[in-house]
């Protein structure tokens, strides 16, 4: 080995390097001290610091020298990566603030170290959500709703699982990601193994959920409860998921000694909440306490029970058929802060009230009470509709003629940068889906019995020889020719722009459309995109985003960015109109893809419930009879048992979480059309 390569640099050599990095710098005393500090470092570290000295000098001599002076102390506590991040952060600080602030930052190594360690070891909800939700769907059989908890706790209200935004309880990121998985699984286990729905006890005495409520405000009791349930649930998981339980055991380490006494009873495979509560009471009486355990999900009886009660009243099912007095037209949980529940406000309007300015500009008339409006504003407010469609009234078993008045309303362009952001976010995926589609596109077809072509068609030749021998007229179509596979497919994407899609769902829709367009541009499939919403049967609206004859260009991209949640969901008329547009396309195969949150609904009671479902179903049926195949994608409506009825002849899929929609859409499309 060449000893020169690893030899430390001598003081004189270091001086030369400092001089060349900071030519003419007046602080000779500072440079001397810098050199002195570096002299003792191993060669690799010397090189590292000299490299960064050069780099930082481009920005500020003073800061570069200060960094070099601090470097020995920093390198005692940071690895090479950490060191680089430390320097880069310092340079950043100088750019954003000034040299003194940057120096102060570099000086406070303790603080940097804390944050650096944290960022190295933390796992975030976003890192794990995809993988965790797939895992839980596999073991539970349902697409669970998993969300970030604002108070950074892990708990469940039995409908959704809530997880902290970040986890840093364990020393490294990989362990913290596992911790997320374990927490989420235990939360699911709480709902699966009766933390909130206790069975009747042995002696026939029912342990009610209310028993839990007794502990609502006792921190110590809740801590114990969480730990005891963690013991019980782990035992429940053991039978089907022994590997997972081994992982949990490794993460949590041995149980706290104080729990020892409870283990046999709670680890019994048949233990129920009653056992947990019995042990809990005994522990409370004995004054037992334990420290909080990282992996044990917390139990918040008061919060959870509130939800269970609400669920009992509505049976947890979407409000169908029941005239629930507190019917909520839009599930408010989709609001992401910036979006206000416009639909709700709207419903509270008295007939005849006009919605205020903002919406007025775009859509002058939004009432379904024509007479009232005409009386107030005169008939000119109702321009002739662009189209009229019949609607199916299942109660009468007949169509209402020209019942729906449909207006084509332009979409205002949205943020021009949006599309690029999305493309960037999904770049790897776009690349992947394009590659897959490339394969479909590349599939050529051999045509046999051609007059010309690249190879002989043996079958045809033999046949012609035989025909000739038998005295027949031999054919001259003796070749096989390779041609590009013609798909002859027209696709209509029908996008729900009702108020209930505001927030996540709307964003997922826009992202999906961008991914689809990016991918579809590769194929020659003819496709169009329309949004739909509306307000009563006299004001059904359709929003052209990309017509069949339009290119996917900047104006289409801006319109996709401009898609927003509007009013209600009258689905039937949109299906009828868009399948008519689709039918006008010459393609041999026609496909209608609807993307919605799956609940037809409109202002007033008329369209709600069975009426809307039956009309939508009928419209899909009509399309089917005319040779249009429909595929209905429903977001966030797992367990909605009316979907098979609603979609009738169409195929459908429920995408459980809006964030999964974009990637799923592209896959669905690939499947439907290959």
């Amino acid at each position, binding site marked *: 080995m060449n000893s020169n390569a690893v030899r430390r640099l001598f003081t004189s050599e270091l001086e030369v390097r400092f001089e060349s990095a900071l030519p003419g710098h007046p602080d000779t005393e500072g440079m001397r001290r810098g050199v002195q500090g570096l002299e003792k470092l191993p060669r690799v570290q010397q090189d590292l610091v000299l490299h960064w000295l050069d780099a930082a000098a481009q920005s500020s001599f003073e800061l570069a020298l200060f960094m070099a002076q601090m470097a020995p102390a920093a390198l005692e506590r940071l690895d090479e990566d950490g060191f680089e991040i430390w320097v880069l952060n310092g340079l950043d600080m100088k750019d954003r603030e000034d040299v003194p602030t940057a120096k102060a930052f570099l000086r406070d190594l303790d603080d940097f170290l804390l944050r650096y360690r944290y960022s190295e070891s933390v796992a975030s909800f976003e890192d794990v959500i995809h993988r965790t939700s*797939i895992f839980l769907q596999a073991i*539970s059989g349902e697409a669970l709703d998993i969300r970030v908890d604002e108070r950074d706790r892990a708990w469940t209200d039995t409908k959704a699982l809530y997880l902290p935004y970040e986890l840093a309880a364990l020393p490294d990121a990989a362990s913290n990601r596992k911790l997320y998985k374990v927490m989420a699984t235990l939360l699911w286990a709480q709902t699966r193994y009766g933390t909130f729905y206790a069975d009747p006890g042995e002696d026939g005495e029912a342990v009610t959920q209310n028993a839990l409520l007794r502990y609502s405000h006792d921190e110590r009791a809740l801590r114990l409860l969480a730990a005891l349930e963690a013991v019980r649930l782990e035992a429940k998981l053991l039978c089907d998921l022994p590997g997972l339980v081994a992982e949990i055991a490794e993460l949590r380490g041995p149980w706290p000694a104080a729990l020892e006494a409870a283990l046999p009873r709670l680890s019994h495979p048949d233990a129920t909440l009653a056992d947990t509560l019995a042990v809990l009471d005994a522990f409370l009486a004995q004054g037992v306490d334990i420290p909080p355990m990282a992996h044990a999900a917390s139990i918040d009886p008061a919060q959870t029970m509130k939800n269970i009660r609400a669920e009992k009243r509505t049976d947890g099912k979407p409000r169908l058929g029941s005239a629930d007095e507190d019917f909520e037209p839009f599930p408010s949980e989709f609001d992401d802060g910036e979006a206000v529940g416009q639909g709700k406000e709207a419903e509270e309007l008295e007939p005849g009230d006009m919605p205020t300015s903002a919406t007025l500009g775009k859509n002058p008339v939004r009432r379904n009470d024509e007479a009232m409006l005409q009386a107030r504003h005169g008939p000119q407010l109702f321009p002739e509709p662009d189209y009229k469609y019949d609607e199916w009234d299942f109660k009468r078993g007949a169509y209402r003629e020209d019942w729906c008045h449909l207006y084509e309303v332009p979409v205002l362009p949205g943020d021009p940068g949006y599309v690029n952001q999305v493309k960037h976010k999904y770049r790897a995926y776009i690349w*992947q889906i394009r590659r897959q589609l490339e394969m479909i596109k590349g599939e050529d077809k051999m045509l046999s019995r051609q007059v010309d072509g690249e190879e002989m068609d043996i079958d045809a030749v*033999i046949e012609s020889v035989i025909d000739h021998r038998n005295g027949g007229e031999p054919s001259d179509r003796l070749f096989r020719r390779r041609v590009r596979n013609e798909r002859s497919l027209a696709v209509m994407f029908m996008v729900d722009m009702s108020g209930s899609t505001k927030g996540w769902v709307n964003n997922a829709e826009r992202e999906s459309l961008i991914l689809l367009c990016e991918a579809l541009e590769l194929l020659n499939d003819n496709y169009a995109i329309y949004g739909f919403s509306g307000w009563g049967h006299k004001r059904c609206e359709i929003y052209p985003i990309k017509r069949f004859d339009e290119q996917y260009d900047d104006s289409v991209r801006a319109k996709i960015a401009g898609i927003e949640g509007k009013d209600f969901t009258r689905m039937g008329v949109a299906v009828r109109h868009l399948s008519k547009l689709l039918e006008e396309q010459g393609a041999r195969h026609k496909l209608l893809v609807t993307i919605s949150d799956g609940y037809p609904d409109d202002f007033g009671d008329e369209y709600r419930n069975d009426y809307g479902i039956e009309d939508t179903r009928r419209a899909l049926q009509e399309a089917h009879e005319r040779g249009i195949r429909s595929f209905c994608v429903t977001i966030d409506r797992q367990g909605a048992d009316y979907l098979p009825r609603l979609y009738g002849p169409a195929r459908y899929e429920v995408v459980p979480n809006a964030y999964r929609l974009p990637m799923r859409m592209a896959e669905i499309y690939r499947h439907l*059309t290959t």
Partner: protein
Amino acid sequence: MTKQSHITPQLMRIDDEPFYQPVADEIEMFEAAAKAGLPVLLKGPTGCGKTRFVEHMAWKLGRPLVTVSCHDDLTTADLIGRYLIVGDETVWVDGPLAAAVRAGAICYLDEIVEARKDTTVVIHPLADARRVLNIDKHGEQVEAPPEFMLVISYNPGYQSVLKEIKPSTRQRFIAFDFDYPALEVEARIVATEGKVPLEIAQKLVKLGQMTRNLKGAGIDEGASTRLLVHAAQLIAAGVKPQAACTAAVARSLSDDPDMTASLQDLVNAVF
């Protein structure tokens, strides 16, 4: 055309009983359909035992079995037959379907949706009361003997709009629904076919069922019985269960790194 000779391939019979684990009353139903001369459509996901069932029934009924895997280049001639020139002579050679009809065999057309529509229609007269095969080129109409039976299969799971069975085809067949069997039954299959202890087979089936919960949520189909049998065979050959499942299940279900990672989590959780 008397000077032309005619070749029809010899068909094999299945001598040893293929192992088939009945799931419901499918064996009796199939026997009844065979007796009544009705054609049968087997619907079900990939690797759930359709082919094995047909093999078993062919053995049970003592008839030869002819299997054709359909694809979109399959021509009518590929099914019915064509002329060949042998030396100085033109010879008619029966295709698999014609051979099956003449021999009174069971003809199994696998994945019928993959075949082109013009190919599919040649089975129509065979699959209704006429029970004949028209060999136009040869100018012959072959009447199917009572033993001949037509069986087709398809996987209704995720069908492309570009490929559907026409109602006029579909409605000629008695339909059987196949699906992955219940845990205990499937475990018995995996244990027998894969030669592993029942306890391991049960774990494999649990894993399989979990992956089936993901159908449509990132993967097109969950692990089939076939994949589970493969995993079992690897285990029987000495591979560690986790590694066997990674190779036979996780990697074969998806290429997406996130999805494969989740599937790996499942494998680790079950074993």
